[in-house]
């Protein structure tokens, strides 16, 4: 088996190979580390690599496999977004503020996946504190899109998406506060799942906006996402907002039979603002699902156009408080020679945080200020409930809601960096899903001028299974998810 085949195999396939001892976890891990070594300089998708630790885990996995004691992901290499705290491994959140931060604890997601036998290779680059849609806000430099190195990979989980598309790892994690899994998945041609809010524990994930943040898997197939979600999900006593619900085995429950599935197409998504090429790809994907037995129904999400404004009040407001702990006192970046306490705060935060993070802290602080609270934060909370109610009503008619994952394909570096509003529009189709706490998935829907585009499927609360089933069927009937970037130019 060639390295290239191995590097682009799905987790499900690799599981079989490992089980059959056709390949060892150590060999697989070596191959991934080699790929990181050869391609990361060009892509900058990974911030921290831990080869020794990875090889050690791989050998432990091999001995478990030899004894027939394997778990669901034993021996599978994986990269975590650098927002998940990893015990003993630097966790930067893409920020100068945490450049030297080494947590003393694992995030629940990290420990759960460790318990399932994964081999952690390292930590992926990301927008600073997950604030961005292009990976241009990272203190550790921009991540390149492997499909076109002059373009962004999307964000904030852009490093994870690019690493996955490049074959650095068959499985990566991401977090999604307003589209940060689905939009980069769309722009890099991979499958990404944002679970229902509360499905996956947030403990140990560095907070951006607590009421919106949700972790999820990114992989080459929906089937792999189902495997990974089963490993990640579950009630956690350490996260009061995690849902006290049983976690189904999403993988064994996968069912490609879509007979009778009702898919809603919001008029507000498929309006004249939708890019015609994107519309064509999304409709092509939807007609595949229709052929498989699903019916397409026009629906209304009448308050969709408030989603961006609502999100950009609530998320920065929560972030302004979540990021207050980075004050240079106990951990993280501290300015040189502070003259007094005020100076310590001001310079540590001005020097430790990048421009976009500071912008959002300021916006959030403003929205919560005396005299503005009712007009901004309170109003946004009310609109959030209205948007949630839109979805609830729509789901009385349909089982899944579909739309684009992003308004277009990957764009060149700098194209939107000077215009925050244009950048915020990148998440126009994903934000509302976070506001409503729903599960959402992006699955590849083909290429536009050689660049990937994604179909977004939105599910009812805690019904990840149905959107995984639909994506799985699409991936059986089409090979869009198998399209790969040409890496020859990269590894030179």
């Amino acid at each position: 088996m060639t390295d290239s085949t191995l590097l682009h195999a799905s987790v499900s396939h690799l599981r079989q190979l490992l089980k059959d001892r056709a390949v060892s976890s150590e060999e697989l891990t070596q191959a991934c580390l080699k790929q990181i070594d050869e391609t990361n300089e060009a892509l900058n998708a990974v911030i921290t690599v831990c080869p020794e630790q990875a090889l050690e885990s791989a050998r432990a996995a091999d001995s478990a496999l030899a004894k027939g004691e394997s778990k669901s992901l034993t021996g599978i290499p994986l990269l975590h977004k650098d927002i998940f705290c990893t015990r003993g491994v630097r966790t930067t959140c893409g920020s100068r503020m945490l450049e030297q931060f080494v947590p003393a604890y694992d995030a629940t997601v990290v420990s759960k996946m460790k318990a399932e036998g994964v081999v952690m290779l390292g930590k992926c680059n990301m927008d600073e504190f997950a604030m961005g849609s292009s990976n241009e806000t990272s203190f550790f430099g921009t991540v390149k899109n492997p499909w076109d190195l002059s373009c962004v990979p999307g964000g904030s989980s852009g490093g994870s998406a690019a690493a996955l598309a490049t074959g650095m790892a068959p499985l990566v994690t991401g977090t999604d506060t307003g589209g940060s899994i689905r939009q980069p998945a769309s722009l890099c041609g991979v499958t990404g799942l944002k679970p229902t809010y509360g499905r996956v524990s947030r403990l140990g994930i560095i907070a951006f906006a607590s009421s919106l943040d949700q972790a999820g898997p990114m992989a080459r197939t929906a089937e792999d996402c189902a495997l990974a979600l089963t490993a990640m999900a579950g009630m956690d006593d350490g996260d009061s907002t995690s849902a006290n619900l049983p976690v189904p085995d999403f993988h064994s429950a996968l069912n490609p039979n879509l007979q009778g599935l009702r898919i809603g197409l919001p008029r507000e998504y498929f309006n004249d603002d939708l890019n015609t090429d994107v519309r064509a790809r999304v409709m092509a994907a939807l007609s595949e699902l229709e052929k498989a037995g699903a019916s397409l129904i026009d629906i209304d999400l009448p308050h969709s156009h408030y989603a961006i404004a609502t999100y950009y009040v609530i998320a920065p407001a929560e972030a302004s408080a979540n990021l207050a702990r980075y004050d240079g006192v106990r951990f993280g970046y501290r300015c040189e020679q502070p003259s007094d306490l005020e100076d310590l705060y001001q310079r540590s935060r001005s020097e430790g945080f990048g421009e976009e993070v500071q912008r959002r802290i300021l916006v959030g602080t403003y929205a919560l200020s005396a005299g503005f609270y009712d007009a901004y934060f309170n109003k946004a909370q009310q609109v959030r409930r209205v948007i949630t109610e839109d979805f609830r009503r729509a789901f009385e008619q349909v089982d899944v809601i579909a739309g684009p994952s992003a308004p277009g394909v990957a764009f060149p570096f700098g194209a939107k960096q000077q215009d925050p509003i244009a950048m915020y529009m990148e998440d126009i189709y994903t934000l509302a899903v976070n506001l409503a706490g729903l599960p959402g998935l992006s699955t590849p829907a083909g290429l536009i001028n050689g660049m990937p585009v994604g179909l977004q499927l939105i599910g009812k609360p805690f019904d990840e299974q149905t959107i995984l089933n639909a994506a799985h069927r699409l991936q059986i009937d089409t090979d869009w998810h198998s399209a790969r970037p040409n890496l020859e130019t990269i590894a030179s």
Partner: protein
Amino acid sequence: MNWEIVMGLEVHLQLATQSKIFSGSSAQFGAAPNEQADAVDLGMPGMLPVLNEQAVRYAVKFGLGIGARIGDRSVFDRKNYFYPDLPKGYQVSQFFSPIVCEGMFEVPLEDGTLFPIRITRAHLEEDAGKSVHDVFQQETGIDLNRAGTPLLEIVTEPDFRSAEQAVAYLKALHSLVTYLGISDGNMSEGSMRCDINVSLREKGSQTLGTRTEIKNVNSFRFVERAIHSEYERQADILESGGTITQETRLYDAEQNVTRSMRSKEVANDYRYFPEPDLLPIVIDSDYIEAVRATLPELPGAKRTRFTSDYGLSEYDAALIVPHHAMADYFEAVVQFCKAPKPAANWILGDLSGALNRNEMGIEESPITPERLAGLIVRIEDGTLSSKLAKQVFDAMWEGEGDTDEIVATRGLKQVSDSGALEAMVDEVIANSPDQVTQYLAADEAKRKKLSGFFVGQVMKASKGQANPQMLNALLLEKLNNQS
């Protein structure tokens, strides 16, 4: 001019939970700096709060203890400000929807009357850490042991009109929370800290004057003195035609003055908003009833019972009841000796005196209630005179055994044998002819005084063991028969 002082109080009560309100760290006082602070308390990235149910139960207990309405859905909020001993840069508190809503607290005054205080609200919040300024040269240390300790902030309406009322309220509150077992109420360790809102107005006026807030006063005595000193300060300003600035002030106990805090530290916009990491606390009637079932008899009910069932005076009841342990001790003594009034007298007198001298609480008393009751029984049955009883008490304090043992080993039994007493009296009269003559010559009033000599002589002869009542009767009879 005649000024009326108007005050409202805010008490920060530390709840005596095992662990902190949002983390598993111990909430005990006195550990070495930062030994009781975990990743949650330190505000480390990715850490999340988990609400301690015991803190909720204690808050509900308090609410039921003052007959307040319990919020069926209370919500935590973030109170945002930067301070080095506030690890997250926000304090988790309850601003919009507190757990305990309006209630009424009846404060007993010294004369036994009840003084009603309206409670505005009581809410749960986490304490901050401590900045330590006196350990390092030119540097400030931060101790986060206290960070995350559960507090109940109890806010009153502006119902106080004197320092005495304020202190009476605080004492009654202290008594209530120790009865409820929700706090040790230890003011010197900061378990109960008081902010006082003070304003003055002309007597008879219905409008409130501009108030100042005196922060963090930590003893009953300082509360009283801080109020008096702030009253004087505000009265001086108003009488010289000035106006009061609304501000936060600190009480300096050494100088007995209040001082303005720098306005920079108080001019805060806290930007409260609902804490997204915690779910609302939903409390149903089942929960409330389950907590109500655990409530002990509270001080008010106990005072009533002690006066009606035991016949104690309001005064004695008011001294015994506020101290839960003392009330329990009293009832235990009464159970054994069936003599409530002597029990109260011994507890408030000799026992309290000895405990105070030794700086001990009644829980640590070397004399058990059963032993004190044994002593009272021997007084009541005439075995011991009060003088002998004090000797026995002292011996008991020293651990010499119970009353009967001490009486036996020391031979302290009161002489109540009338024949033996008579012989002693006869001997004293026979040996004191001058005194007898003097006695017989005196009028009724003087005789009483002169009889003391004979009593003393007989007591001396009996080594203090003569039964005083019998001796008195016998002596009078014999003396009056001399003529």
